[in-house]
């Protein structure tokens, strides 16, 4: 599908506002949905649609590149803990994260990405310090 002029955005008018129609890549190809809100996760922004689907920013048509990411040290301990509680609550309530584009799938994706970046970076930094000393 060829993007329309509306979909070719600039950073100045990004992210779009609630109520706008968005196009995004999906496993089925290209889909559209009405934006409800944009929410920062632990690493990237998620676009929550009116129908409940949660789409990561990098899959939204017209999103600026390179993408804006959060640094791991910007995430507070309280934010991390709140995310961990939500994930465990979702898991314990029987939700399945293998439902693509749903809240649990989206949160778990970000949590794994954040945890990986956080502890990989910390391990590398310590390794470099030991090598230097």
């Amino acid at each position, binding site marked *: 599908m060829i993007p329309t002029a509306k979909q070719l955005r600039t950073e100045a008018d990004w992210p779009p506002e609630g109520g706008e129609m968005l196009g995004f890549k999906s496993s089925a190809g290209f889909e559209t949905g009405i934006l409800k809100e944009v929410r920062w996760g632990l*690493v990237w922004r998620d676009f929550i649609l009116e129908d409940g689907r949660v789409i*990561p920013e*990098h*899959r939204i048509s017209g999103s600026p590149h*390179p*993408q*804006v*990411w959060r*640094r791991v040290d910007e995430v507070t*301990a309280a934010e*991390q*803990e709140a995310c*961990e509680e939500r*994930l*465990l609550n979702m*898991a*314990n309530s*029987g939700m*399945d*994260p*293998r*439902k*693509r584009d749903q809240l649990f*799938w989206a949160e*778990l*994706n970000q*949590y*794994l*990405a954040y*945890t*990986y*970046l*956080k*502890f*990989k970076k*910390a*391990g590398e930094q*310590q390794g470099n310090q030991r090598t230097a000393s």
Partner: protein
Amino acid sequence: MSRSDEENEGQRVWKALSEAGLVEIRLEDFTDRLGEVKRLVSMRLRDLLNFATGTQECESAARSLATLKGLEVRLQATAPRQSKSSKNG
């Protein structure tokens, strides 16, 4: 941090996550990816305990590990079939 630095940092993050198969986890790979992140946190926690450094990070790693273990148990319980070992890109 300059805009150029931010862009480089963004590209570095994207590359690291892509290589680890963590930008967008394929549905059938959740258990494998979770296990790999859990191993990374376990190794980091062991390092922190061995070298008796970073109490705050140690607590954070222990908490993350407990969360990942809890999630892993639930994921395995609801797994539709045995997970594959292939990575996504």
